[in-house]
């Protein structure tokens, strides 16, 4: 009987209509989102000279792999790829380490001005990067850190959002776990490392994925800090490949670089799809 009523519920005409409506709305949004990506993918397989006449050439043969072979032979794209990878991975490791340590301290340790310092950290969420960019540029210039991996990574490592997220996550872990560990004669750092940190893995995954994606796609700071061509990240390198404003030349090659640059992000998404969905749904989906 229960099965029957459940069946009836899922096939109720109202629900069916609303499901169909949701499907079509989602489909329209999906097409709008994916069309430019498919367009770029198509362009990457077209000869540059054909595209000079008009980018609608993407819809008709012939297609070629030449842009990709050029990528392997005549471009700094691999160097930029490496730079992006070093910066994104380094920044992600940095953010996870610092945010976890700070989050643990704010959630569990007693020290003077703890609440005030936490508020100051949160204030960082409200300060736009543009507001501090000149001062930051000056500072890194004085420190002679421009055109270095550390210079590209450091600003992104202090993540107010990361500290906030990890603090909240540590706070949500019952204090009895720490107390049980204390009674188990566990030193403070070992409690953090062996007991609590493994419990924050869902938050670490969320923070790690978003930090990686943010660092990989960052354009603003690398544009200022990396002025030497061999220190460009992919975003800056690809932008520098544009030969004229309308990009009437080398459009296919540019698209091939863009596709290549997107691969790691797509791979990250495929592998961590579940964590990303959980993260953006605020953990509501179980």
């Amino acid at each position, binding site marked *: 009987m229960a099965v029957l009523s459940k069946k009836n519920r899922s096939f109720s005409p109202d629900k069916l209509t609303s499901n169909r409506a949701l499907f079509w709305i989602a489909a329209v949004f999906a097409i709008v989102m994916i069309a430019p990506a498919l367009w770029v993918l198509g362009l990457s397989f077209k000869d540059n000279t054909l595209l000079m006449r008009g980018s609608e050439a993407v819809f008709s043969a012939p297609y070629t792999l030449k842009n990709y072979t050029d990528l392997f032979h005549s471009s700094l794209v691999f160097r930029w790829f490496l730079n992006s990878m070093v910066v994104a991975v380094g920044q992600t490791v940095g953010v996870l380490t610092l945010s976890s340590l700070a989050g643990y301290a704010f959630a569990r340790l007693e020290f003077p001005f703890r609440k005030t310092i936490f508020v100051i950290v949160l204030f960082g969420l409200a300060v736009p990067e543009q507001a501090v960019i000149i001062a930051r540029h000056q500072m890194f210039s004085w420190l002679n850190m421009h055109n270095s991996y550390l210079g590209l990574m450091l600003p992104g490592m202090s993540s107010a959002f990361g500290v906030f997220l990890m603090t909240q996550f540590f706070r949500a872990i019952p204090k*009895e*776990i720490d*107390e*049980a560990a204390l*009674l188990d*004669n566990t030193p403070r750092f070992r409690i953090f490392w062996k007991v609590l940190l493994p419990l924050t893995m869902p938050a670490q995954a969320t923070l790690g994925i978003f930090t990686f994606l943010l660092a990989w796609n960052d354009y603003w700071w690398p544009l200022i800090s990396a002025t030497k061509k061999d220190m460009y990240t992919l975003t800056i390198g690809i932008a520098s490949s544009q030969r004229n404003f309308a990009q009437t030349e080398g459009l296919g090659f540019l698209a091939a670089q863009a596709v290549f640059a997107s691969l790691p992000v797509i791979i990250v998404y495929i592998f961590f799809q579940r964590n990303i969905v959980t993260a953006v749904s605020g953990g509501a989906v179980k």
Partner: protein
Amino acid sequence: MSATIDINSVTKAYGALTVLDDISLSIEAGEFVVFLGPSGCGKSTLLRMIAGLESVDKGTIHIGGERIDTLPPGKRGVAMVFQTYALYPHMTVAQNMAFGLENLKVDKAEIDSRVQSAAETLEMAHLLDRRPTKLSGGQRQRVAIGRAIVKEPKAFLFDEPLSNLDAALRSRTRLELAQLHQRLGSTMIFVTHDQVEAMTLAHRIVVMHDKKIEQIGTPMEIYQRPATRFVAEFVGSPAMSMMPITGIVSAQSSDQKGATLEVEGAGMVATQVPLPASFALDGATMGVRSEDTHVVQPGADGLNLTVTVVERLGERTLLYGKLDTGFEMIVEDSGRSTVRAGETVKFDFDRSALHVFDGTGRAYHMAEEA
């Protein structure tokens, strides 16, 4: 391994709020002591102070003769079982149990042997490779106890460990805890607000109320000879019924056994409780437990009770109602009672089982037989 625990004049305050005031208590080696009291009485705080999870503002705590209130929790030689179990969710049962021993640098073979032995004692050897999330509440409770056992502590501390279990499992685990204590012979302190747990498990009960110890005694001492009105009303289910004393006719009755009292709603009552001349009459009450009352035939001597609620418990029936004077009273009838709510019944009570409380709440009982 078991050890004595001595708590001397311990005080604890959070800012201006005092939660424990000058507490002193000695626990024998191997004794099972239950801290009993309502929420907020300070019983868990006292336990946590013994464990080292709360600091001691004043006073000292010794375990096995060694002062431990200045030591960190892991160096006190105690093991604690938490209400929420506090197992490490990412570790298996075996890892949970071994973790504390690894921190103490115990030899690997010794750790394995102790974990195996504890698992067999608690009949959970088949669970050793599972994670806590894959266990039921009762199984988690066993793991928490197992984690304590492997440490071979000087004392076990239990902080309301049965609260999260359902009634049937709680009853079974209670029995298992009693058996475990018999087997290990360790000193155990158990915190609860459940008097059934206290009565069934304890060698001695420490009844706490309002920052202080109200009474320390065996379960039957606490039940039969409560030291204060609070203990009398808190221990025992249903609670003891109280009737105001309006006067003392004589401090000693004609048979020299006890005082004759003027009790509101019950008239003149000859008790077997001797009272001192200094007895504080203002606010004094006479207490009667429901099992010391009985329904009598209509027309016989007794008091009228207008029944408002009937609670049928199988072997007995509890009649909740009001006396003619309006005071609430609980009277016991047989399991076959046919009394219904709204009816008026006559009842009487056993004069030899009365408890008298003066205006300060101090209790007076009939003289103990030599």
